[in-house]
């Protein structure tokens, strides 16, 4: 059998990468920041939200419910229904259709995408009233 010295030498040339810095990030010491337009967790500017329910209407995964806020004090005066969207991240696919149809641009997606909780119910949340996007340690009681 003829040995292909050139081919073997060519393959061995990749050994040079052993002496170069790694291409990966040193996570968790170095974290990757998402791009500006990244589709992460939602945020809702309640001073703008008019409670129209367009976001709930277009969501194909039924991930959005319109619910009463904890306090009506911070609602927009033009919020006719008195309701604001609540997200279920067990259903959301981050397609961003809800933010596309929002007529007042109150509902937006943020760059935050890391969230850890031991309580499953914490993944149903109301943007604007609560904030996601941090690592949260909780104990199930």
């Amino acid at each position: 059998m003829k040995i292909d010295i050139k081919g073997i030498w060519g393959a061995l040339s990749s050994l040079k990468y052993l002496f170069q810095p790694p291409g990966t990030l040193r996570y968790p010491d170095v974290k990757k920041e998402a791009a500006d337009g990244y589709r992460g967790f939602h945020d809702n500017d309640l001073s703008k939200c008019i409670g129209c329910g367009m976001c709930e209407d277009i969501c194909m995964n039924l991930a959005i419910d319109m619910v009463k806020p904890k306090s009506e004090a911070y609602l927009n005066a033009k919020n006719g229904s008195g309701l604001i969207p609540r997200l279920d991240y067990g259903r959301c696919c981050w397609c961003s259709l809800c933010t596309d149809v929002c007529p007042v641009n109150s509902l937006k997606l943020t760059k935050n995408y890391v969230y850890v909780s031991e309580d499953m119910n914490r993944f149903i949340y109301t943007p604007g009233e609560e904030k996601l996007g941090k690592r949260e340690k909780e104990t199930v009681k």
Partner: protein
Amino acid sequence: MAQDIITIFHGPQHPGITGNMSVELDLLGETIKRAETHVGYLHRGFEKMIERRTVLQAFTIVCRICVPEPDPNEENFARGVEELMGLEVPEKAKWLRTMVLEMARLQAQMLWFAGQGGSLGHYISPQWAVADRDLILDLFEELTGGRVYHMYITPGGVRRDLPEGFLGRLGHFLDYLESRLPEYDNMLLRNPVFLERARGVGIIDPATAREYGVVGPNLRACGFMNDIRKDEPYEMYGEVDFIVPTETSGDVYGRAMVRRAEIEQSISILRQIIRRMPAEKEIMAVLPKNHRKWEVPKGDTLVKTESARGEYSYYMVGDGTDKLRRVQVKGPSAVHAITLLEEMLVDSQLSDVAMIMNSLGTNPPEIER
């Protein structure tokens, strides 16, 4: 001493494919005597899910039919709806779509490269290729907001314009990738181990290719110069220069060389797009303002796209409501990974199964749409 035939399951998790699918093999020693494919592990009923949603909602599902290369699905679906609704897409949106399709082709070819090396136990290939693919995903993240599922090409145009300086960063990445290709060649495609393993294995002869309806790089590796981008140009493919690479061996090595040449062609196409990208801001057709008013007129259409694995087609029927009456999705893997594979595997070796499956570009979700 006479040997007994034993039957084993190869899969559903194995290195030959990006997805779950198993092959039942009858083995005489290491030689395969019968192969039967089993799919269904990923069935989610995409066609019916699309038919139950309005067209605007459905475009966010179609990308999930093919994980390694979702964009041809988005483009196909969007173009079908546009044909049915008579929407005129702005020129810049067409350029952006072409750019996204070629970026998707590049990252799909990198994933193929990773699988081709990995299926041989050559694990530097997946590490290099996946790392370089991540750089394309970074660009996708910047442009579309998503890394794998982009949901960018929507009926009527595209969802976002280019971020500031994006084309420059894309150009830098293309320079980097081009400089890496000789290293990829040295590491795998000229590697004597790969040549020994890939040459003369998994051969598709031209007559079988035509009979079974083989498409894409698998067909071009048999000597046929068929490419939807050339045969029935869509988006801006009629405006860019590129060649359709072919090989004649029809084996795993031939298919690898076709895909390798297609990476170079994609780089060339993307450079042309960078030079010719219009400055205008218009990226969406004029659409009904209220999403509830979207109605697809009665009629039907068949649209085709050339994905990294071959011809993708959507047959769509509108019935005058806001939903599509019928959608049929045909991906290239249905032919390659079921009927053809069962025949190809007979008399090949057990250790070659993963390599052959990967060389066909098998992607089970598009079989089970």
